[in-house]
Each structure stands twice: as structure tokens, then as C-alpha cells.
């Protein structure tokens, strides 16, 4: 059946009346489609269907972090979005940062760490697998510098930028929400993954995703009366918010100290 014939056999009412409901529109499109030749049917879509198809298009592949964060964020840090990781001290935040940097740099990507707390240890990072040559380390003195540095790095084309605000007290407090919105916009326009690690919520509505890390539970081997040995840390990550995803999901983050730490700091010997 030709297209013109299909149109002429369509009830005239469908053209005259505005579509009152989505169901009616869908039915009308269905009528049209059924009257079209088979090879043309897939080309006829309603506006609603077109929007659904567009929104169902997969986003750019996320940056895997090689941690439990990947399960929560469905594959890793989403490109073009700001994800905020909050948690108090010893919650596994910094381990997640190192794992993300290691995962990105091992894949050959350039990455940048804006380290407000000046907490990065190159020796430990190298042990964690971070390719130090691909990592840019910026050490701002306060939050304002941190935000500007992150924006400059995003504009510079770094595909992964991690901002670590350290532990409280954070120099500069929470900052202005407009600055975080600007940062999120920069990440979106440059399609970069942006992870903000903070002891408390700072980015407000700018964050596309928020993951909270609970207090970590230390795992010790041995014990009284004998010596103890730190063999790990277990924490719980909760997805509090994520655009287009269901929130309030949890994953367990399990971390182990590197061998060099288990057998002493670098070359130290076991004592005690």
C-alpha cells in the first residue's frame, strides 16, 4: 500500500481533532503505522516516542573507579556530571580517589587531582597503581583557589578531575553554590568526569550524584594479649542521589592496606 493511499484511508477525524491524551495519540500513530508498508513503519514516530528514544540513548561511557562506587553509579563516574562523595574521616573516601586515579591513568587517560588538604602521597599512589606521569597534582591553599583550579582543569580538557577538600576544617568553608553550579556546567560542557570528595555536602543542587561513605570499620588481626595488625577497612557506600537512577542503594567498600604497610611502613620491621 502506498503512503498516499494510507493517508487517504485514514479517518479524517484524526486530522481534525487535537490529540486529547497520550493514549489517543499513540493509538492514532498505531493506526497510521499499520497502514504503511512494512519497510516504512519504523520511520513513523510520534513526538513522544522520539523523545523517549532520545532520552534512552546511552550516555558516554563512564570512568570506572574499580571500587564499589562502580556498582552504585552503574559503571563508574559519569562523564559531564559532578558526583559528590561525602564522608567523615576513615570512611574510604581517599582510597576511592586513589582507585579512580589509578583506573584512569592505567587506561592511558590524563587525570587531575585538586588536593586542598595536601594529602596525596606519591609513593602510596604509585603502589596503588597510579601512573604518576599522567597525573597533574594541584595543591591550592583555600576553597576559592580549589574551585578556580578545577574549572581551569576542566576547560583544559582533562577527562577526569578529582577535587578533594580533605578533612574539616576545610579552608574556605562550603563555598558559594553558584561556584559549584559553574563547576558542574564546566564539567558538562567539556564532557569531563568530576568527583568532589568532601567531609560534608558542599555542592548543593550542582551535584548530579551524591554518595555517602559511612564511618569505616577497621579490621584487625590478632589482638590482646598479642599484637594487633591492621588488615583492612570496611565501609558502606550509600547512593543518596543520582539523576535518572534510583537512590538509596548501598554497597560495601572493602579496602586492604598495601603489603608494604602490613609489613611495616616501607622498610620498617614488625615490632611490638
Amino acid at each position, binding site marked *: 500500500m502506498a503512503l498516499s493511499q494510507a493517508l487517504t484511508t485514514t479517518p479524517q477525524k484524526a486530522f481534525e481533532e487535537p490529540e486529547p491524551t497520550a493514549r489517543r495519540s499513540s493509538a492514532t500513530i498505531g493506526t497510521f503505522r499499520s497502514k504503511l508498508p512494512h519497510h516504512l513503519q519504523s520511520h513513523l514516530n510520534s513526538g513522544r516516542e522520539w523523545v523517549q528514544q532520545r532520552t534512552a540513548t546511552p550516555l558516554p561511557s563512564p570512568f570506572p*573507579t*574499580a*571500587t564499589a562506587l562502580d556498582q552504585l553509579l552503574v559503571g563508574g563516574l559519569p562523564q559531564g556530571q559532578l558526583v559528590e562523595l561525602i564522608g*567523615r*574521616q*576513615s*570512611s574510604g573516601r*581517599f*582510597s576511592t*580517589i586513589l582507585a579512580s586515579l589509578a*583506573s584512569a591513568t*592505567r*587506561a*592511558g587517560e*590524563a587525570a587531575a587531582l585538586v588536593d586542598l*588538604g*595536601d*594529602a*596525596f*602521597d*606519591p*609513593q*602510596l599512589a604509585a*603502589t*596503588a*597503581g597510579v601512573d*604518576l606521569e*599522567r*597525573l*597533574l*597534582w*594541584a*595543591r*591550592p*591553599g583555600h576553597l576559592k583557589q580549589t574551585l578556580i*583550579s578545577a574549572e*581551569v582543569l576542566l*576547560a583544559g*580538557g*582533562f*577527562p577526569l578531575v578529582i577535587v578533594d577538600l580533605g*578533612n574539616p*576544617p576545610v*579552608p574556605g568553608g562550603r563555598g558559594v553554590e553558584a561556584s559549584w553550579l559553574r563547576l558542574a556546567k564546566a564539567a558538562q560542557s567539556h564532557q569531563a568526569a568530576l568527583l568532589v570528595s568532601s567531609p560534608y555536602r558542599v555542592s548543593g543542587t550542582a551535584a548530579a550524584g551524591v554518595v555517602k561513605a559511612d564511618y*569505616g570499620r*577497621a579490621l*584487625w588481626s590478632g*589482638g590482646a594479649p598479642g599484637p*594487633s595488625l591492621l588488615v*583492612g*577497612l570496611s565501609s558502606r557506600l550509600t547512593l543518596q542521589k543520582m539523576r535518572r537512577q534510583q537512590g538509596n542503594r548501598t554497597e560495601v567498600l572493602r*579496602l586492604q*592496606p598495601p603489603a608494604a604497610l602490613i609489613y*611495616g*611502613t*616501607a*622498610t*620498617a620491621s*614488625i*615490632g611490638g
Partner: protein
Amino acid sequence: MPRIACLFTPLFPLAARLRSEPELRGEAVAILQGNSNAARVVAAARRARQVGIRPGMSLPQARALLPNLTVRARDMSCEKATQESLLEIAESFSPRVEDAGDGIAYLELDGLDRHFPGDSPEQDLGHALTITTDKAGLTTWVGIASSKLAARVAAELPDSPNRVPAGEEASFLAPLPLRSLAAEFEILDTLERWGIRSVGDFARLPKNEVASRLGETGRQLHEKARGLDSRPLVPYQPPPHFAEGMELEWPLVNLEPFLFVAGAALKRLCQRLESRGLACARLDTSLRLEPDGHHLRTIQLPAPTREAKTLLTLIRLDLEAESPAAPVTGFTIVAHPDRPREAQLSLFGPPALSPDKLATTLARLFALLGPERVGSPRTVNGHRPERSALVEYAPPPPPEVRPEQQVGRGLLAIRTLRPPVPLEVISHLASPREILSILSESSAKRPRIQGRVKVASGPWSMEEEWWSEKPVERDYWDVELAAGGIFRIFFQRATGEWYADGIYD
């Protein structure tokens, strides 16, 4: 005879000034040389010439003709930069270029016809030269001939580009007055006494007779009159750096107006660098101060860049940190060039950072944080975790194929405390039982570490630099506090003090 093109910038002092201040184009502008009442017009724009303002007039005479005449002093630094820009354009067409000064450049055209395969390659080349100089903010006329004199005369004619066919130089030059050969030679007076008035009259004299009576200089002039040019072009040696500057009309006290004019100069500088495929590796800013002084600042860039906005930001930050002590009357910005970084794109691997963007990013971060706080981290010899090193960030090219993702080991990291936080520790049987941060003014912004120790693991001995006068001897403990938090603390044997240098996180 090789074919030669002459690039001629009419009213060069005015053209140089308009290049620096393009907003004056179309206005009645006059360039004056000299001080106060002795100042004379050396060049005037069309609207000023239309009312009768001519070179040689004094300022009051010119103002009498046109009261709202815009006047600018002749600026030698502008003219020097403009001449360099003109020569760079000539060099972009031909490797053999001669600097004739005052807005004139000669270039040899041998072999260039292959780049212009049309019916009239010389005419096309002339148009290309005109277009290129227009883009650089200069109005230039072009003349093409087999001798420099003929090319120069052709360039001064209207309807540029003008070409003199090969072999017709003598007839082209013949009607010109004798002074066209060279104004300064005494020989010309002698010739005029002989009754010779035009170049053609002189060219018709016998060659050997002229040489025997007027010597070598006379022989050379005679050759020029016959349209011959036996001397090759004097090679132009480009300076090792690029400079732009200008004399300001009045002394500037605030930074913002200075940055406005400096920004325009930087744009021109970056345009020149880009035309040569170079970038700026070091920037020298020389400010001339009132009444007599200089303020010289040097900015070393982390990577070569040619983004004017970034360079302007660097100058702003530098001058904010160290302001000149007096009002600024003029400036010169010198860019030391270097090859920009290059990157090879990959089809299947991760994309590389754009070298230009990276250079700009690093320059901005350097200006914001300082060079000691930005770079690529490196490990250092030794075991003290608070020590680290930074090197210039120059990432290697990404792999050609994206490697497979590896499963992470879930490594427990330590957040290093720099410098270590001093502690008070209550211990029992050499094992920490309770710890407390020592409060001081400097520690107000450091993390508070205090509480009862739930589990302590240690000590792990660490000795470093035992051969030096100040060896480092530490006993490390991992402690978990009852209130939460796992810390790495150490006892410094030499001083008997306790510190925390990391948080397991």
C-alpha cells in the same frame, strides 16, 4: 635577472600607529615628531589631508585647519614592531628578504610562480601579499620588477599590485626625475649641472664614460637608471625574539587601562608567533616609568603558549604582585619563542590533551597557585611519607589501543598530614592509650585528633639518614580511636615527641 617584489607601506609612521590603535582608522589623525612647538606633522590620515594638513606643518597650523584633529606622537617602538611584522610576512612568502626600513621590504620571487599557477602568477602573488598584509593590520602596496628601484617605484603607484615586465625597467624608469635614483648623492648635483633632468637622460649616457668621470658610485647609479641591479638582496636576520610595544599618550596609574592596551599588543604578538608556527616560552615586560625609570618583569611559562588571554592574565597577576613605583608612560612586551608542544592523535586509544590547551592550563595554574604547587608528582628517596617531589607536567602520549580495565585491589590509602600534627599521648607500657592534638595558633586549621585509643598496633621502626647529623628515627603506630578514625602516629626518638602523619581513609 631575478624578479623582485617591493612591499611599500605608505605613510609608515601613521600606518604603524593605526596598527597599534585600530580604533583610530577613519578618523582625522596626524602623527607629529618633535617636542611642543617644534613638533611637525610627519604623516596625516586621508581626512586630515583633505582639509590641507601636510607633512612639515606645525601643530598650531594643523589645529588651525582642523580643530578636532587627533594627534599622536611618532612612536619608534610601534614602527619597529610594524617593520618586523612586515618582514615576517615577506619571509612567509620567500626565504630571500631584504629590510629596507621605514615600511619597505624587498623579496626575491624566484621559484614562487609554481605556487601561483594561473595566467599571471606575479599579479596573483601581488594580490596574495596585499591580502596577507591587510590581515596583519597593514595597508601595503606591492610593486614587482627586475630591479629594486623599479619595484619600489612601481609599488608607489596607485592600483597595487603593479608589475614591470622583465626587460622594460629602463623605459619604465626613464620619465622619472633624477632625484628618484637617490636623493642624497652629490653626483646628482653634478648631473643636473650637465643638464640631465630625468633618469632616461642619464641612462642614455655611455656607460664607460660615466664610470671614468663619476667613479664607482656613478657607475652604480647608471646601472640603476638602466634598470639593472647587480647586487643581491641583503639577507634579513630576524631577531631572536618578538617584541611589541607603544608609547602611551599620557601616564597610566591604574592597572586596568594598562591591561587594555597591553592586551591589544599581546594579540598582535600572538598573531605574529602563530604565523611563524611558534609559541611564547618566556615573556619580558618592560615598563617605562615617569619621569625616567624602568620596571622589568620576566614571566617564565611552564609550556610554550600563544593564547593572548592567558598571557594577559599572567601579566595582570605579576603586576598585581609587584606594581611599578611610578606612572607608566610606555611599554615593550618581548616574547621569547619556542616550538609549541605537539601531539599525535590516536584512532583507538584515549584522546591526548591538546598541547595548546595544556600549556594554557598550566600557565593559569602557575599564576594562580605558584609553580611549586602544580606539577606531576614524583616519589623521592626515603621513607618519610610527608616528602614528595613535583616535576613539570608533560604526560606521555596515550596508548594506541585502550587497555582492558583491571579489577581494583581495593587498596586502603592513607591521607597524609603535611606537616605532621603534634600530639600529646598518654601511654601505658609504651603503648598509646589516649591521644590529643596540641593546640596552637598554627594547629587551629589542622584536623583535631583526640580520644581514647581503642586498638593500637606497633611500633614499626623507621630509620632514615642515619649517616647524617640529624638522622630520622621514628616508631610508628596504627591506632583506632574509640570515637572513630584510624590514624598513623609516630614517636620521634630524638625529641621524644609524638606526631600524627596520616589518616587511614
